[in-house]
């Protein structure tokens, strides 16, 4: 998902097969979508991840979508236990993991049953035949064997392979026990798919060595399984299935394949370096935010302290304590954790201290769908505290953009002395894409100044320190503990503006409420950029992770001759200064969101614009195809109100 205005991504399932000059025997396609599906014990996430890495090294553009169950271990072979990993690889710039897979790997009947409906018409299913026996079929809810009867596989190309027994056979002479060999069958599948798409073999072999080094039998079993799958492709006359996806013509530079939580963590580390401040992460594990703790815990050499607290409230409390001490305080969580942290967020904004609250949204309410994505916490981020309590909100749009958004959130927090919500989601967190690494010298330093001298004279002409004296942006003076002479006390009780002394004066409270609102309004954020047919009557307004699907859908619609403009918000509070102007005079303002219309509500309220909502709350991201259809319907006035 290399950011550019629009791509000419081909239509749904369109494999534009062309001859390639370099490898005359293997036809090339411009892109392919592969979905690995199996039992959650089958290692599908690992398999997908390895395929992705090999493709990234090969130079493809790509986007991934891990789709896994919340249960640690649902009963093997059941529909609840199906774990899937979808990846789109291409020879051009793409924005999404694709709509309908061209190829699906089904490691057992449950995987076939749960995911077959996603397959593109005429797509290929690669099936592990060994698992299609009565017990597994029953567990998956089949009262017949779809390999032998029924219409399930009609219209698909089926490659039925006894993966388990072939893997066991390949491992036999190594002395690997059948049970252990069975666990390597995912590498058989990986080997087969790698052969079909001419993926390089070496990176996977090296990875197996690195990952399982020292456990010789496991290394040997996985390598043997991979090779067996690879050889099977050649010997089973699957040559007509073999295609190549050439490297994408990406901008020159150094690339790495990154998921959102990793790049977000790196952005936080970078922000600490740019501000020349130590980072303090106070947090409590929660899906899908936990990987941020895991990643930051590795980076002590950057002056990063990670504190796994006793609960969410302690996590943000400790982060706020560190901020009070002059460090960059950060807390990471997901929706239910934000709810617990809301009182401390209120305190932080009353104290006017820097604090970054990272929220990786998931399906709600309550425990909801912890491993599935949703973006329904916008109103909570915006309004989910008591009293008038505005907090800036920054939302990344792609996995790699999480890096920039994290730096931006820290910049606002530190330079405006305010808690800031960094609002990502599960789809960005776990999805990955190639990222052209920025030149770190180009990143702007974050100027943080702490007050070290008196800033006020009292009526007797004596020097004093007033913690709530403000600059032109209404940012208050901040002296940190340890600074001589500037001792002062702050708290959640209303303070007199300027002196910071406790004040219950009604007019002072009204003034402070207005100042707290105004100082957020005065945060300068870049104008929102309008792309596509800039002056079109129809504007699609998006935020967060819908960027990829919207961009792809618009590429298709504009390719068909529709005039549409697109604007995507990174800053949701305050809104960009030009947003009102951008919305003005459009016939349609359509807002696709993974909620029931939260941004629509905000836009309608703020700009009195008849924004129309395009909602999806299924725990799955939008596909470009469904957005294309819905946008067309809405433009034509056919959408349900």
């Amino acid at each position: 998902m290399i950011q550019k205005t629009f791509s000419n991504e081909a239509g749904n399932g369109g494999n534009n097969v062309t001859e390639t000059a370099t490898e005359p025997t293997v036809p090339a396609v411009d892109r392919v979508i592969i979905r690995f599906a199996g039992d959650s014990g089958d290692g599908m996430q690992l398999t997908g991840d390895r395929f992705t890495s090999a493709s990234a090294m090969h130079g493809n553009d790509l986007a991934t979508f891990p789709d896994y169950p919340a249960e640690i271990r649902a009963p093997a072979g059941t529909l609840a236990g199906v774990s899937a990993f979808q990846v789109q690889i291409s020879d051009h710039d793409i924005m999404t993991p694709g709509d309908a897979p061209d190829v699906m790997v089904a490691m057992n009947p449950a995987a076939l049953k749960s995911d077959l409906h996603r397959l593109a018409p005429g797509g290929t299913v690669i099936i592990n035949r060994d698992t299609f026996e009565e017990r597994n079929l029953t567990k998956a809810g089949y009262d017949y064997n779809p390999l032998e009867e029924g219409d399930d596989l009609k219209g698909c190309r089926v490659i039925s392979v006894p993966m388990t027994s072939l893997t066991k056979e390949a491992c036999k002479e190594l002395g690997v026990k059948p049970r252990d060999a069975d666990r390597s069958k995912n590498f058989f599948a990986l080997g087969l798919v790698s052969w079909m798409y001419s993926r390089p073999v070496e990176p996977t072999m090296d990875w197996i060595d690195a990952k399982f080094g020292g456990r010789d039998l496991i290394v040997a079993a996985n390598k043997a399984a991979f090779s067996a799958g690879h050889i099977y492709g050649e010997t089973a006359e699957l040559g007509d299935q073999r295609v190549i996806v050439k490297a994408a013509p990406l901008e020159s530079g150094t690339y790495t394949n990154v998921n959102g939580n990793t790049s977000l963590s790196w952005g936080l580390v970078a922000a600490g370096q740019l501000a020349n401040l130590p980072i303090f992460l106070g947090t409590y594990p929660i899906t899908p935010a936990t990987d941020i703790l895991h990643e930051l815990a590795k980076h002590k050499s950057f002056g990063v302290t990670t504190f796994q607290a006793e609960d969410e409230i302690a996590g943000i409390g400790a982060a706020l304590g560190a901020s009070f001490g002059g460090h960059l305080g950060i807390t990471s969580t997901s929706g239910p954790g934000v709810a617990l942290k809301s009182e401390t967020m209120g305190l932080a904004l009353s104290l006017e201290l820097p604090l970054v609250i990272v929220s990786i949204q998931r399906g709600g309410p309550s425990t909801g769908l912890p491993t599935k994505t949703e973006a329904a916490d916008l109103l909570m981020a915006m309004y989910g505290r008591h009293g008038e309590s505005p907090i800036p909100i920054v939302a990344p749009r792609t996995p790699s953009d999480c890096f920039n958004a994290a730096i931006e959130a820290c910049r606002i927090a530190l330079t405006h002395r305010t808690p800031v919500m960094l609002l990502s989601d599960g789809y960005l967190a776990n999805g990955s894409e190639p990222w052209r690494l920025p030149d770190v010298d180009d990143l702007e330093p974050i100027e943080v100044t702490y007050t070290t001298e008196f800033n006020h004279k009292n009526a007797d002409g004596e020097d004093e320190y007033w913690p709530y004296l403000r600059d032109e942006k209404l940012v208050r003076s901040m002296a940190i503990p340890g600074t001589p002479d500037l001792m002062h006390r702050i708290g959640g009780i209303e303070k007199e503006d300027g002196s910071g002394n406790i004040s219950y004066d009604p007019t002072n409270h009204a003034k402070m409420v207005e100042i707290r609102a105004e100082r957020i309004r005065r945060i300068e954020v870049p104008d929102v950029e309008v792309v596509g047919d800039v002056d079109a009557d129809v504007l699609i307004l998006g935020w967060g992770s819908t960027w990829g699907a919207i961009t792809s859908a618009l590429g298709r619609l504009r390719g068909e001759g529709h005039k549409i403009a697109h604007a995507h918000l990174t800053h949701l509070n305050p809104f960009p200064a030009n947003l009102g102007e951008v919305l003005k005079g459009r016939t349609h303002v359509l807002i696709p969101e993974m909620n029931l219309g939260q941004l629509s509500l905000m836009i309608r309220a703020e700009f009195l614009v008849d924004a129309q909502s395009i909602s999806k709350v299924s725990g799955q991201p939008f596909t470009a195809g469904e957005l294309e259809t819905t946008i067309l319907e809405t433009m034509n006035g056919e959408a349900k109100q």
Partner: protein
Amino acid sequence: MTATMNNEVVPETKRADWQSDQEVRWCPGCGDYSILTALQLLMPELGVRRENTVFISGIGCAARLPYYMNTYGMHSIHGRAPAIATGLAMARPELDVWVIGGDGDMLSIGGNHLIHALRRNININILLFNNQIYGLTKGQFSPTSETGKVTKSSPVGLIAEPFNPVSLALGAEASFVARTHDMDRKHMQEMFRRAYEHDGASLVEVYQNCNVFNDGAFSTITKKDVRDDMLIDLRHGERIQFGSEGQYGVVSCDGGVEIANVADVGLDALLVHDETRQDPSTAFALSRLAAGPTTPTPVGVFRAAKRAEYGAAMATQVAAVAAESGKGDIASLLRSQPTWEV
């Protein structure tokens, strides 16, 4: 832990230097006044810098105290002061961080943070003002209120049994636990000093009189004329003996401890108090001598044992990583996964 790093000379201060310009607003006669005075008198003796001293509190009457100390301070939210102080103490180990809270604040809404701050042995000094009542919300029972107590929220008597804060702290592996009371400023000052000198988390329970909502809760043991017979003064290395004539003592019994007449058991049978004992069992047994302040009650330092302090352990870990991998470099971090050139 002392703020006088590297033997630097700290300018002398007086009590007045530790008094902020804010008007003290507690009910007349509140026990909090004498605790505040004890702290303001102690600070000059400790020879610390005001700017390196931070008071953090939650919500409640006690939690107003930071406003009255001329140091850095934060009046935060109900129950959360130990968590906030933990972050500050970890980020800035050179600061002296004090946590102020009441029995409702720290044992009820903030119970979780209290036990974990003690368990981790973060270098903070926690002063728990226990008046066995909710004062700021005007008279509901608290986690330390005695069973049967009639309050606005328990009009026919409290059903639950109370927490014993010292037992709780010892159960949470606290390395320093002491108890004192607001009628004896010298003793308070001594306990606060010991807490300050302790490396790691320290908890001092202060029996504090709420003369409006729970007046006289501790008078059975703290009034001048009964003190000698009702307060068991724990002194390290000495026999645990009390009473106006020294007629009572504490002896081991059945795996625990009990009060005995010295005349019956003889002086040599009395338990010698060892606050440094690693095994907290004896300290815990001592904390069980009194279920509440109506029978002879131990005061003083129950436990002052050496345990690894969290912040120091963290600093050691960070230094070890830094020594091994060198200072972090963002450009290298971004290239820490497989990369390729286009």
